[in-house]
C-alpha cells in the first residue's frame, strides 16, 4: 500500500495523511475476560481480528474514551517522531491522565449505526464540524461532503432522516459520518462491512480502503471475517481471549485461517452446506 500513499496527488489533502501513529497498552477485566494488550498502529489501516468475545469492541471503546480501563497508556505520536518526543496522551492511568472522548479525536463507527434520528443524513455526516472554523477547514469539509456520498453510495438519501433508511444505508451513512472526521487522530470502525450486501460490500471495501489510505487518518477496524481481512490487505493484529497472538501483514498472520477455510470449501459436497456458518 506504500505506493498508494506516496502517489497521493498534491492538493488540499496532502497536508494530513498519516502524520500520527498510536501506541496502545491496555489491561482491563470484563467479566471472565481479561484483556491485556500492547500494540502499535503504524500502518494506514490495521485490522483487529478475532472471534467474538475476544475483546475487540472493548479495545475500540477504550481507545475512543467510552470506558475507563483498569490500566491504560494510549498515546498518539506525531510524525516525524524525531521532531518531538512528546505524544498526545488519550489516557495514562499510571500518571492520572484522562482525556475525555470528545477531546481525543477518535471517531468511532459502532457496529450498530447510532445515527441522530432528528437530523438528516447530511447533517449527521457534518455533525463533527461546528462551522466557523478556518477557511482551510471549511474547504476540507466541502471537499469531503462532495466526495464521500458517492464513495458510500448514499447520494440519494442525503436529505432523508435515519428512520427512512434501510439497514445497509444506515450502516454506510454511519461509516461516512466517521470518515468525515478525516482530520482526527484515528478512525475506529467496529465490524464496518458486516451485514452489507455482497456486490456493494466488495466495492465499498476497495474504494474506502483506497480513499482512506490516501487522504484519511489511520484506521483501526474490527472484524472476525477472514475474507474481509484479505480483501483489505491491511496489517492484522490477531486477538484471542483478550491477548495479542500475532501482528503483521494479513498474508502472514491469517495464512492458517485461510488454509482452514479453503480445506472446508474443498471437502466433499455433502459437507459444503455447513460452510455458510461462521467458524
Amino acid at each position: 500500500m506504500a505506493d498508494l500513499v506516496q502517489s497521493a496527488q498534491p492538493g488540499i489533502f496532502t497536508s494530513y495523511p498519516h502524520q500520527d501513529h498510536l501506541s496502545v497498552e491496555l489491561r482491563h477485566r470484563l467479566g471472565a475476560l481479561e484483556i491485556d494488550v500492547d500494540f502499535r498502529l503504524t500502518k494506514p489501516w490495521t485490522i483487529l481480528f478475532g472471534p467474538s468475545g475476544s475483546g475487540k469492541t472493548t479495545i475500540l471503546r477504550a481507545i475512543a474514551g467510552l470506558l475507563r480501563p483498569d490500566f491504560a497508556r494510549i498515546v498518539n505520536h506525531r510524525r516525524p517522531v524525531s521532531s518531538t518526543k512528546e505524544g498526545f496522551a488519550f489516557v495514562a492511568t499510571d500518571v492520572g491522565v484522562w482525556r475525555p472522548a470528545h477531546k481525543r479525536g477518535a471517531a468511532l463507527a459502532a457496529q450498530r449505526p447510532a445515527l441522530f434520528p432528528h437530523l438528516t443524513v447530511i447533517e449527521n455526516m457534518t455533525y463533527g464540524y461546528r462551522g466557523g472554523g478556518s477557511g482551510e477547514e471549511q474547504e476540507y469539509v466541502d471537499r469531503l461532503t462532495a466526495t464521500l456520498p458517492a464513495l458510500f453510495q448514499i447520494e440519494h438519501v442525503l436529505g432523508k432522516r435515519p428512520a427512512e433508511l434501510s439497514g445497509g444505508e444506515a450502516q454506510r451513512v454511519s461509516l461516512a459520518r466517521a470518515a468525515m472526521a478525516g482530520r482526527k487522530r484515528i478512525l475506529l470502525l467496529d465490524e464496518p462491512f458486516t451485514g452489507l450486501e455482497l456486490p456493494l460490500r466488495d466495492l465499498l471495501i476497495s474504494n474506502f480502503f483506497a480513499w482512506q489510505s490516501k487522504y484519511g487518518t489511520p484506521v483501526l477496524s474490527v472484524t472476525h471475517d477472514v475474507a474481509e481481512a484479505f480483501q483489505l490487505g491491511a496489517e492484522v493484529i490477531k486477538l484471542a481471549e483478550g491477548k495479542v497472538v500475532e501482528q503483521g501483514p494479513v498474508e502472514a498472520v491469517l495464512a492458517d485461517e485461510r488454509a482452514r477455510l479453503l480445506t472446508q470449501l474443498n471437502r466433499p459436497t455433502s459437507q459444503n452446506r455447513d460452510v455458510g456458518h461462521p467458524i
Partner: protein
Amino acid sequence: MDTQALWLTLRLALTTTALLLLIALPLAWWIASGAGAARALTQAVVALPLVLPPTVLGFYLLVALGPLTAPGRLIIRLLGHPLAFSFSGLVVGSVLYSLPFAVQPLVAGFRAVDTALLEAAATLGASPLRTFTTITLPLAKPSLVTAAVLTFTHTVGEFGVVLMLGGNIPGATRTLSIALYDQVQDFNYAAANRTAGLLLAFSLATLIVIYWRGAERRPLLG
C-alpha cells in the same frame, strides 16, 4: 368574575414556569446523567411536594422567609419587606411546590435518549454541553413541553402554599383558587360557580391537549 385574580394567577403561573424550566433543565440533566446516593437524595427532595401537604411546605417557607431566620432577615434587609405576603414570595413557593412536575418528566425524557447517540456525538468531538443542546434536548422535546404544561397547570391550581405564604391580598397574592375560597365564605355561590367552572375547564382542556399530543407515552411521573 374576579378578573384581577385571573390575571394574577396567569402571571404567577407564567413566571413560575419560566423560572422552573431554568432550574429544572440543569437539575434534571444532572440527575439523568448518572446514579448514586447524591442523585437519589436530590430526587427524593425534589419529589417531596408530591406527598407533602402544601400547608406544610407553606408553613416552613413562611418561617424560613420571615424575620425568624438569617436568610429571611437578609431578604427583608435587601427588599425592604418580607417575601411572605408578596407576589415574589408566591413565586418562590410555587417554584418549590411545582418542582417535581418539571423535573420528573425531564429526567424520564433525558434517560430515554439512547446512550449510543451520546457516545457517537462524543467521539465526533462534541462536548457534553453541545451533545446536550444538539442531541439530548431536541430528542427530549416532548418531555420539555409536558414539563412546562404540567408546571403551568399545577401552579394555576395551587391553594395551600398560597394561603399559608401569601394570604389573601387582592392584586398581590389573591389567586383564582383563593378567590373561590373567599366567594364560598361569602355565600356568593354564583361567583364561586363561575370561578370553579373556569378552573375546571382550564385543567381539563390542558390535560386533553397533553394526552391528545400523545407525544409522552411514558408515565408522566415516575
